[in-house]
């Protein structure tokens, strides 16, 4: 059973000139937040991604089901479309700061694409970032080391114009990613 969020279009092989993700209207601006990257440096999201196609996703490393599929799909498009990837930024925010160290986040992202940016922060900083991004706050369920994290299941896409034109719930097909990232990359500021 895949996510039931409806996506426009059927994701066929024919390239479309329209976005096939879930279109956001009117498109909100990028959220302003500062977190810490995997090198331990402050990362000001708006400043560091200015003018670039930006994909923002909140997840956690113990998630074996949803998170790897999203990241692998985006990495696949980056492989196929190097010109798009060159001016794009993928930002993965771990919402599990108690378990996910910066080093572990780096190793995790390198499984997909070493260009992907990994961020973490204090719980308060992460909640602030999630609120700014307009997603539900992560919830921590269960006890001991095997607790799970309820988290927003969609990737938020910002075109180079700095606006969030579309989001990508779980169940987005590879062809839809390929189609949309090319369109979004052309929506300059």
């Amino acid at each position, binding site marked *: *059973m*895949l*996510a*039931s*969020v409806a996506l426009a279009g059927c994701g066929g092989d024919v390239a479309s000139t329209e976005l096939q993700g879930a279109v956001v209207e009117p498109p909100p601006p990028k959220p302003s937040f500062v977190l810490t990257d995997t090198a331990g440096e402050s990362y000001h999201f708006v400043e560091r991604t200015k003018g670039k196609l930006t994909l923002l996703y909140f997840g956690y*490393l*113990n*998630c*074996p*089901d*949803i998170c*790897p*599929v999203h*990241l*692998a*799909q985006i*990495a*696949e498009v980056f492989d196929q479309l190097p010109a798009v990837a060159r001016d794009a930024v993928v930002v993965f925010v771990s919402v599990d700061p108690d378990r996910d160290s910066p080093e*572990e986040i780096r190793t*995790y992202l390198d*499984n*997909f694409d070493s260009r992907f940016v990994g961020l973490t922060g204090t719980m308060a900083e992460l909640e602030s970032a999630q609120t700014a991004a307009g*997603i*539900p706050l992560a*919830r921590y*369920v269960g006890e001991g080391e*095997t607790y*799970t994290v*309820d*988290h*927003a*299941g*969609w990737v938020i896409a910002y075109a180079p114009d700095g606006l969030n034109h579309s989001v990508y*719930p*779980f*169940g987005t*097909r*590879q*062809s839809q990613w*390929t189609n949309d990232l090319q369109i979004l990359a052309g929506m300059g500021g």
Partner: protein
Amino acid sequence: MRSIAALAASVALLVGCAAGSGPQVTEARVGQPTGPNAALYFTVVGNQGEGDRLVTAHTDAAEAAELHETTMGDDGSMRMRPVEALDLPADGTLILEPGGYHMMLINAARLEVGDTVDVTLVWETAGDMTIVAEVVEPGDTTGESP
């Protein structure tokens, strides 16, 4: 990205139980672990007009195996929860796939794409059944064509 046809072809040889009795398992696959845990997916077809119940599993490739379900909350959050058992309807199908049910392999061993993993599924009626799952790229677990 491999097509479903390629995936089906690769796993067709890996069906881990004898034909003709008990549940039939196909498309057994494990996403290459990218973190501490991995997810095992497969499809089970019941036969002989009787249902069964998948209660647990064992594998040397992980510290533990748990049945989990991912659902979407009203606010769009993805929620992963352990489930006690999974029912295989009589003459029906039980599908474990991303975004639905999966067998979580907790603290999985280091696995490379193309490796195979032996997993013993424990059924309430059929008993133990060993299947062989292929390790696939993290994005190839959906079994969908692109």
